């Protein structure tokens, strides 16, 4: 008896008892669906974290005051422009930009007369290469802007749309108004970059602040503050970033005559650490979901045992007319496989749907990975075989005489 014929006759048997089939598959469906849903949510949040890091620029290092320093902090410990100039001299630094940022300013949306909060970052020329944004129009901040404290800003395409109602070449050179406690000041738009997070921000409408970049010196004047938020740098050799980080910290300690007050961390390390956390959590919950798969498998085995008993006579007849033990074995394994594979496929579909709904509720994009689907499929087939073998073997070893006598 060939496999194809076995499959079609197994389908007939499985569907002869629809209610029982559905109930049996339910265990597998729930198990697979939860694994898929959990893994796609986990996957989605991982992707989201990655894209946030991507925006920060992977591979760069951030020098800042340690928030968890065991020492007392003094205002003299704050990073200064001079620190930046000193670190710039350290060998192995490829790109470096001091940054100063603040969230307490608002931008006037000229056309609509509305204002929106903004996230203003003061930088130097190197920042362009560190972040490598996609420059759509105009130019980025130049060294001369920093020297001359130029009143120029780089805005994102989404800000441009909100402020001017359009985003094209003609925005370059136009004025944008930034409001502080000292009153409004006008800045000229010198460049427009692509907002990499536009899609995520859309979901939250206007809650996201406008990202605005300006020369660091202009920002210092606007904020009325000299101290830096942090210093961002990129190592010449990423493999030696750890070594560089040590040298940067010791140089800072030297300048400030302090210890354990500064940190210099690579974003790649942070990303890896974050990914490890989400990965572990996802794996843990998936493992719990796998338990329901095992329970589902036992359900399949149970029902297969019942089926074998119910069909003892059929097995006897089949054997009498020439079915070999392996024919009977194959028949019942295929029936178990149909139950689990079909359950697995339904579980995948439900899992994707549940993932979407849960993702929507949690505000996380659910990303279904092909790997998870393939693994779910393989697991459900595996369960079919593991939990189908015992009942199938029992069926195949039935004595035909006894089986024929069975009422």
């Amino acid at each position, binding site marked *: 008896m060939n496999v194809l014929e076995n499959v079609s006759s197994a389908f007939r048997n499985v569907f002869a008892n629809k209610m029982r089939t559905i109930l049996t598959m339910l265990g597998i469906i729930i198990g697979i669906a939860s694994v898929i849903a959990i893994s796609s949510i986990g996957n989605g949040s991982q992707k989201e974290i990655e894209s946030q890091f991507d925006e920060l620029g992977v591979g760069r290092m951030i020098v800042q005051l340690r928030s968890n320093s065991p020492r007392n902090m003094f205002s003299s410990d704050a990073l200064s422009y001079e620190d930046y100039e000193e670190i710039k001299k350290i060998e192995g630094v490829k790109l470096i930009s001091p940054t100063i940022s603040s969230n307490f300013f608002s931008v006037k949306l000229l056309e609509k007369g509305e204002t929106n909060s903004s996230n203003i970052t003061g930088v130097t020329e190197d920042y362009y290469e560190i972040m490598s944004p996609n420059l759509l129009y105009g130019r980025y901040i130049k060294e001369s802007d920093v020297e001359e404290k130029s009143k120029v800003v780089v805005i994102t395409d989404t800000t441009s749309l909100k402020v001017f109602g359009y985003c094209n070449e003609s925005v370059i050179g136009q004025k944008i108004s930034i409001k502080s406690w000292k009153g409004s000041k006008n800045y000229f738009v010198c460049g427009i970059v692509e907002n990499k997070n536009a899609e995520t921000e859309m979901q939250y409408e206007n809650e996201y602040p406008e990202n605005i970049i300006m020369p660091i010196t202009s920002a210092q004047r606007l904020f009325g503050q000299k101290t830096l938020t942090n210093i961002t740098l990129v190592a010449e050799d990423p493999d030696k970033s750890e070594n560089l980080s040590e040298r940067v910290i010791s140089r800072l300690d030297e300048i400030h005559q302090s210890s354990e007050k500064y940190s210099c961390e690579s974003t790649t390390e942070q990303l890896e650490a974050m990914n490890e956390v989400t990965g572990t959590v996802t794996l843990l919950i998936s493992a719990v979901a796998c338990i329901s798969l095992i329970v589902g498998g036992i359900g399949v085995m149970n029902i297969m045992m019942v089926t074998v008993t119910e069909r003892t006579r059929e097995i006897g*007849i*089949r*054997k009498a*007319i*020439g*079915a*070999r*033990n392996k*024919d009977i074995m194959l028949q019942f394994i295929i029936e178990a496989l149909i139950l689990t594979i079909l359950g697995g496929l339904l579980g995948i579909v439900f899992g994707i749907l549940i993932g979407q709904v849960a993702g929507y509720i949690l505000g996380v994009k659910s990303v279904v990975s092909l790997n998870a689907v393939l693994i779910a499929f393989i697991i459900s087939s595996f369960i079919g075989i593991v939990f189908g073998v015992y009942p199938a073997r029992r069926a195949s070893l039935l004595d035909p005489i006894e089986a024929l006598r069975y009422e």
Partner: protein
Amino acid sequence: MYRQGSLEVNALSGVDLWVKPKEFVSIMGSSGSGKSTMMNILGCLDKASSGKYILDGIDISKVKDKDLSEIRNKKIGFVFQSFNLLPKLSAIENVELPMVYAGVEAKKRRQRAEEALIKVGLEKRINHRPNELSGGQRQRVAIARALVNKPSIILADEPTGNLDSKSTIEIIDIFQKLNDDGVTIVMVTHESDVAMYTKRIVTFKDGLKIDDRLVEKQMKAGDI
């Protein structure tokens, strides 16, 4: 020797039976006489604890258990008292089943199954399920199934036991016609009037063969 519970019972002993090709033999005996055991051994469902069984030149006592299914498939056709058709399959699918296990291709299978059903006069009901057929019709499906792999022998275990007298005659008629065409048949029955339609009657009692004689004047079911 036959094991029943913890007690070992000699179901058959010292039985010597020789069935020639094209014979139509009935085996008679009351319950417990050993005739069912005899049928199980003849049908390769069971093996004798000692002694020899040669079927069509093959020494069955030397065939491995796992190869017995092939012997049953190719050399033996079973007809049971309770028909033993698969309820979910149509008449023709039931007849096709032995060929499925023999590995006959689908097209050829259908054709041979149809031929077999025509032979038993059931060509109009090939797509009916067993529960849509009368007892006599079910038994005819079973006979078609037994025939379809062209076995060396047909073993019928009380084939008319569940049938009314009219159907009984019809089934006997089919057996006789098949026998006229050269099919060897061994039939277990406890009804002596049914046995009178066969060519030879073997009687068992308490595991022993007590009588073996040719029927002097075989009755013809077709005459009634």
